[in-house]
């Protein structure tokens, strides 16, 4: 009865002793053990490095998205593929400024929006001409939505927009390229066949890294939306900001409802516009990352299988080498279960050691990955769950592939084992 009550305690103690024995065995056969675990080491090292790279990439993308604004939605015209407006004239499909009049009153989940018009232009100041500058027509709320504020001078006013006044905001880059004075406010530039007064300087665009084609930032010039609309008949789209990422879907539905009304779409007609939510791209990326992880996991499980066979092989060698020892242990009273446990613990220890070495190798590879220039992997790291999972996996491989040799050892007939040469 007492023996029964103390059984769990004795079992744990036995595992500990088996572990120490296993460590002794592994230490006594260092080279062999390391070679046997190589399959597992390589498998775990590669999967942890892949996971580290994906984790780093994800962190990078996430921080990019956050600086870009996860609440952001883009509204653009979209030719329907069916319905009465199929193949309709562009003038019917395109967005027009009036369609957004009073939208915020009907879309409580939308914080703000800006109409956008884009074009390219050449600009001239004195002797200097800039051949191609990115020209954007914006609403004053654009500064808030993009997080790019006016650092010198003033933003556009409602009057600037209403009267389509020839005023513009420029970036420091544009200022320098046109060799304007450090404070260009009050100077004028020539573009779109007229003179524009510079009323302020805007923050440079956020660095979005390589994900969105960062690096070569264009020279930018901004004018009131109405000014550009009147002057060039440009492509128009709208950027809207939801109040929070959680209400992004509501905001989208509200905008859609509002736009269908303002664009006079009948109930059975498909949308003639599209609304893209940025967070959807994030979901896409997450799905992609999960896919890559799964593929890497599949490849790794093959290498773990091979590694496991290596472990089984070496354990079988170990069992046959130590047949006499097993016979002796049985003769002095080791139960079959004790022998089984001893060899199982040895296999698991061997595999866990391989897993540990693999994680170290993966860490080494991660450090190398971080140093690849322009690879966007400087945030790569092995997450804790990957470490835990790797060890659990290698332990499982140990149990799986150690079981057969351990059963073989446990079933040895002590008489024959002691007679074994």
């Amino acid at each position, binding site marked *: 009865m007492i023996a029964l009550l103390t059984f769990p305690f004795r079992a744990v103690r036995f595992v500990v002793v088996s572990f120490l024995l296993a460590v002794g065995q592994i230490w006594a056969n260092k080279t062999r053990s390391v070679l046997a675990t190589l399959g597992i080491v390589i498998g775990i090292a590669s999967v942890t490095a892949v996971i580290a790279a994906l984790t780093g990439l994800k962190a990078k993308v996430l921080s990019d998205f956050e600086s870009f604004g996860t609440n952001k939605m883009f509204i653009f015209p979209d030719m329907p593929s069916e319905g009465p407006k199929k193949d309709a004239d562009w003038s019917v499909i395109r967005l027009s400024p009036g369609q957004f009049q009073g939208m915020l009153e009907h879309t409580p989940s939308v914080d703000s929006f800006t109409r956008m018009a884009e074009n390219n232009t050449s600009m001239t100041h004195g002797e200097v001409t800039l051949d191609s500058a990115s020209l954007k027509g914006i609403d004053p709320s654009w500064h808030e939505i993009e997080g790019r504020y006016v650092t010198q001078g003033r933003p556009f006013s409602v009057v600037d927009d209403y009267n389509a006044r020839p005023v513009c905001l420029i970036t420091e880059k544009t200022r320098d390229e046109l060799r304007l004075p450090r404070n260009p406010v009050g100077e004028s530039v020539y573009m779109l066949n007229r003179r524009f007064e510079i009323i302020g300087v805007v923050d440079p665009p956020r660095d979005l890294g390589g994900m969105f084609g960062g690096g070569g930032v264009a020279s930018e010039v901004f004018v009131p939306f109405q000014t550009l609309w009147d002057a060039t008949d440009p492509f128009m789209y709208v950027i809207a900001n939801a109040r929070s990422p959680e209400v992004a879907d509501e905001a989208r539905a509200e905008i859609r409802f509002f736009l269908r009304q303002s664009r006079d779409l009948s109930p059975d007609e498909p949308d003639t516009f599209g609304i893209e939510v940025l967070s959807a791209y994030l979901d896409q990326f997450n799905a992609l990352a999960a896919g890559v992880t799964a593929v890497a996991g599949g490849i790794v499980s093959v290498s773990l299988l091979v590694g496991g066979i290596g472990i089984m092989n070496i354990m079988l060698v170990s069992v046959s080498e130590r047949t006499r020892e097993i016979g002796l242990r049985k003769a002095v*009273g080791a139960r079959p279960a004790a022998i089984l446990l001893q060899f199982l613990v040895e296999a698991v220890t061997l595999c866990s050691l391989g897993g540990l070495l693999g994680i170290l190798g993966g860490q080494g590879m991660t450090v190398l990955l971080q140093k690849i220039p322009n690879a966007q992997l400087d945030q790569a790291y092995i997450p804790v769950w990957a470490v835990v999972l790797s060890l659990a996996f290698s332990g499982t491989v140990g149990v799986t592939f150690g079981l057969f040799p351990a059963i073989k050892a446990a079933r040895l007939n002590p008489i024959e084992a002691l007679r074994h040469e």
Partner: protein
Amino acid sequence: MLIELKSITKIYKMGVERVHALDGVDINVDEGEYVAIMGSSGSGKSTLMNMLGCLDRPTSGSYLLAGQNTSRMGAAAQSRVRNERIGFVFQSFELMPRTPAWKNVALPMMYSRHGWAGMRRKAMAALDRVGLRDRASHKPNQLSGGQKQRVAIARALINEPSILLADEPTGNLDSKTSHEILALFDELHAQGHTVLMVTHEADVAAHARRVVRMRDGKVASDLPVEEDEVAELIPARSGALQPAGGTPGDMGGDA
């Protein structure tokens, strides 16, 4: 009665042939006896030894060890009997290499259900009984043959078994060392241990008090040593079996 073997048979099937390794063996051994089991190879003495050591099960018959019928036990229960009741001494010592003497001695304690408390102390005490206390941390390759067998005997003693089962314990030793080991068995017997020893050497068997001779799986003779043909080889004895008072020139013993 410590050991009761009742009409033990052991039949091995070799293809279609059936080999009677043991064929109706009846042996009783009392506590404190010193029995030599002799016989040529193929006589069944090794099978008998395995049977006595609970390493093998009889095909029929029963083996009562200290009143417990071990012949129908499962593997785990047999392991426990081996662990608690039997101390094995092998011809080739069977020490674990790269393992210090005291750890070799402590091995049976590892599988004991009585816990591991005082493992080192008990191992040291057992080594003390075989006169090797100062070699406790030596590894087998640092010990002589005789010392190895002493370590093995200490290992057999550590769980205080009911019987010491020695299989040709001097088979791998020179005659001088054999003498020392046999003297040690004499001493252990004198201290009250039950000793069963398988041997084919008459002068070794002459150390026992009783000689069982096996032939063709049967007991051919079972006589006190004085009546067996090895009688003339009986060495000078220490106190235990001599008339009270002992004789000069004791071999040490437990005086």
